[in-house]
C-alpha cells in the first residue's frame, strides 16, 4: 500500500507517446515543475514521450515547465482556457506556425469537464459559451426556459500533480491557491503522479483535512525543495 517511489524518473515512468497528460496548476501556482522537467529529461535521453496532448489552464510561461515541454517538441496539442502568459512565446510561435494544436475551453467548463471525468459523468449541460463561437457544433438544450450547451467529460492517461503533504497511501493536501485544478485532475487520470513537499506516515494528515483521498493517487515522490514556477520566471531561469 506504499505509493512512494524513490525518485522523479521513477515517478514519471509509463508516460508514453500520444498520451493525454493533465498538469496541475494555474499559472505558477501548483505547477509541478520538477515532474515536468523529469519528463523533459526522459524525452531528451530517449526521444519519448512525444505527441502529448497537455491539459492545463494555460499554455506555459517563459522557458520552463510546460513552455519547456513545448519548446522541446513534446507537445502536439494544448487543451486550455487561456494560452497566454507573461511570456507565452513557446506556445505562440508554434501555434502561429501551425505546429501545435489548441482546444480552447472556457475555464469553468474545463474544470467541470475534468471533474465529470473523475466522477463518471459522461456529459453535462452548462450555460457557459451558449450562443458563442466556442459552442459551435456542440449539442444545445433548453431547461426551465434557458439554453445550455452539452459538454463531455475530459479524461487523461496521466496527471502530474504538486501537493504540499502526502501520506504514503496518497492522501494529499495542497498549499493555498495551488489547489486549483489538481484535485480534479488527480481523479480524472488513469495514472496520477504526485510530487509532495513532504511525505508523512498514514494518520499524520487529519482525515478531516485530506483534500485528495489516496484512492485517486498512484505514485508519490518527495520533492522537499520544490521550485515555484513564478519564482523561477523572475530569476530568468530557462530549462533546456
Amino acid at each position, binding site marked *: 500500500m506504499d505509493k512512494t517511489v524513490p525518485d522523479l524518473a521513477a515517478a514519471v515512468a509509463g508516460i508514453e507517446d500520444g498520451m493525454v497528460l493533465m498538469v496541475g496548476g494555474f499559472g505558477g501556482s501548483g505547477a509541478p515543475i520538477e515532474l515536468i522537467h523529469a519528463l523533459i529529461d526522459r524525452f531528451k535521453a530517449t526521444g519519448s514521450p512525444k505527441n502529448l496532448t497537455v491539459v492545463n489552464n494555460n499554455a506555459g510561461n517563459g522557458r520552463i515547465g510546460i513552455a519547456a515541454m513545448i519548446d522541446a517538441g513534446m507537445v502536439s496539442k494544448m487543451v486550455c482556457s487561456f494560452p497566454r502568459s507573461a511570456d507565452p512565446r513557446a506556445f505562440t510561435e508554434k501555434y502561429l506556425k501551425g505546429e501545435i494544436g489548441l482546444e480552447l475551453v472556457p475555464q469553468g467548463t474545463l474544470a467541470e469537464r475534468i471533474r465529470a471525468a473523475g466522477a463518471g459523468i459522461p456529459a453535462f449541460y452548462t450555460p457557459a459559451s451558449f450562443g458563442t463561437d466556442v459552442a459551435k457544433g456542440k449539442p444545445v438544450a433548453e431547461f426551465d426556459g434557458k439554453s445550455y450547451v452539452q459538454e463531455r467529460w475530459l479524461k487523461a492517461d496521466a496527471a502530474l500533480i504538486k501537493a504540499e503533504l502526502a501520506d504514503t497511501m496518497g*492522501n494529499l493536501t495542497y498549499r493555498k491557491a495551488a489547489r486549483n485544478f489538481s484535485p480534479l485532475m488527480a481523479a480524472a487520470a488513469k495514472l496520477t503522479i504526485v510530487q509532495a513537499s513532504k511525505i508523512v506516515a498514514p494518520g499524520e494528515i487529519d*482525515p478531516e483535512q485530506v483534500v485528495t483521498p489516496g*484512492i485517486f493517487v498512484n505514485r508519490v515522490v518527495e520533492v522537499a525543495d520544490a521550485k515555484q514556477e513564478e519564482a523561477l520566471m523572475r530569476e530568468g531561469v530557462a530549462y533546456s
Partner: protein
Amino acid sequence: MTSKLSNAQIAWRAAQDIEDGAYVNLGIGFPEMVAKFQPPGRQAIFHTENGVLNFGEAPPAGEEDWDLINAGKKAITLKPGAAFFHHADSFGMVRGGHLDVAILGTYEVAENGDLANWSTGPKGVPAVGGAMDLVHGAKRVAVITDHVTKDGKPKLVKRCSLPLTGVGCVTRIYSSLAVIDIEGGRFVLREKLPSMTVEELQAVTGAELVLPDVIGDLVAPEVS
C-alpha cells in the same frame, strides 16, 4: 442437495480475491462480513458511501461515535490514512470507476450480468440506497449469495424477474455452491463444491453453465 457453504464461508471465499491495497465497497448486510476475512498480509481500503475511506471494524459496545458510521448506519472506526469527503465526492469515486471491487448481495442475478437486489415488487416502501450507483462503480462488481432461495428456487437465472438494479453489471458470483464468472452473457463455472457434480449444480441453476477445461474445487475453512 448436499452440503453448502455458510454465509461466512461465502464471504471468506470472496475475500480471497481482494488484493492488497484494493479499494473496496461492501454492500450493507451480508457483504459487510467480507471485511473480516482478509488474508494475512493483505490490507484492503474500505469505502463507505456516506463519505469515509479506510474505515475499520466496529468499536466496542458503548464506545460508538454515531457521527462515525457506515452506509448501513453501523458505528465504525478509522484506520491510519483515512479520509472524509462529502456525498458527491463519495459517489464520484463510485461512479468514476475508482473502486477496484464492489461486493453486493442479490435477490437474482442473470447470465447477462443483470442484477436485481433492491425490490421484491410493488408492495411496501421502495428503497434503493446506493445500489444503483455501486453496480456501475467498480472495476469488478461481484455478488455473494445463497445459490438458491429459501424455497429452493434458483437465484442465478436466465433473465431477472424482479425489478433490476443494474443492466449487465455483474462480473462474478460467489454462491453457497460455486464461483461463477459472467462472460459474454453466459455463466462460466470456475469453482464448485467438490461434493457436487456439475449436473447437480446445473439442476439448481436457472441458466446454462459454461464449463471450461479447468473447474476448481470450492473449499472454505470453518469460519464464522
